[in-house]
């Protein structure tokens, strides 16, 4: 896992996007992922807090190219209307 260079991609999103995002990252080349229940506030705050199930944090360690792809996909598909952020480390 440590040998080749890898990137950690972190996505924080409304809970109801969870399964879609998990499918997407695997489709885009991830071999695994880790999910954490989180709460948060942002510029949109589309999430209704616990009523709509707070947020989830999706982390996946992938090759740089894959990271690119995931970040782009999330940005295109979700930034406009959904409470989502993504960052690559």
């Amino acid at each position, binding site marked *: 896992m440590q040998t080749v260079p890898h990137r950690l991609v972190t996505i924080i999103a409304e809970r109801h996007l969870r399964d879609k995002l998990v499918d997407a990252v695997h489709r885009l080349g991830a071999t695994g992922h880790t999910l954490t229940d989180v709460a948060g506030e942002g510029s949109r705050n589309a999430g209704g*807090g*616990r009523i709509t199930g707070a947020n989830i944090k999706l982390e996946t360690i992938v090759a740089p190219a894959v990271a690119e792809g995931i970040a782009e996909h999330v940005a295109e598909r979700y930034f406009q209307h959904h409470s989502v952020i993504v960052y690559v480390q």
Partner: protein
Amino acid sequence: MLDVLLASLLSPVVLAFVLGALAVVVKSDLEIPAPLYKTLSIYLLLAIGLKGGVALSTTPMAEVAGPVGAAFALGILTPILAYGLLRRLGRMDRTNAAALAAHYGSVSAVTFIAAQSVAAFAGTPSEGFMPALVAVLEVPAIVVALLIAYARGERAGSWREALMEVATGQSIILLVGGMTIGWIAGEEGTASVSPFFVGGFQGALTLFLLDMGMTAARRLRDLRDVGAFLIGFGIGMPIINGALGVWAGQMVGLSVGGAAVLGAMVSSASFIAAPAAIRVGLPEANPAYYLTAALGITLPFNLTLGIPLYLTLAGWLA
């Protein structure tokens, strides 16, 4: 009126709601763990489903047909009414108007349960099969609202997904599932689980309303974001829908308690099924509007003044 109002306001469930709101106002460190909130909503939905199913198993279909028809009709009518008001009077854009219409056309299970227990508390219990009406009332309004929205140009969300979301949402699964179990197992089949689902019900509801009070009070802080009209809508719409519901209930021969509870159901704004569906179907709609209106305005109004009002109305019409 007054005695009903008192009977309602002084019932433990409503007092718990007030206590929760107070805890937020005084910035208490009281916190209801999220898993407890989820557990209580699963429990309450399953419990009313079971009760409703058992009741259905002993009720002649003829008796249920009328109320079911009325609920269905109201589920079609009220979202159209809400949409019209929001567009005409509120000058609200189509997307947010449709989103709010979905919420106010659908039903809040909590409000139903509270109404049911207040009605019983006030000595006019409602029919046992009422939970069936919740299931009937929940879906159509959301479909209608999405139809209205999608009939008007491109949409960011997915229409099909949104319907799946409602149809397979936890409230439908647990309500309909619970009803089926109760209906199959019947009175004696469910006897062994009733200490848990019947005996514990009012107490669990008290805890749940404590949490709802906290959520509502937090939402209240967003009031400034939603504007005066939406505040008026959040109080006026339930009164109109509630009156419609009570009247319809009388028409189809429900008891005073039954008509009042139907009124409360119709007046209530969904904040579980509808938001889930709207996030998927109309993601471009602003949740600050529908969540604040449904949770911050209409829910508190119904739990405190609305339910007694519908009970009184039902009494007069009877």
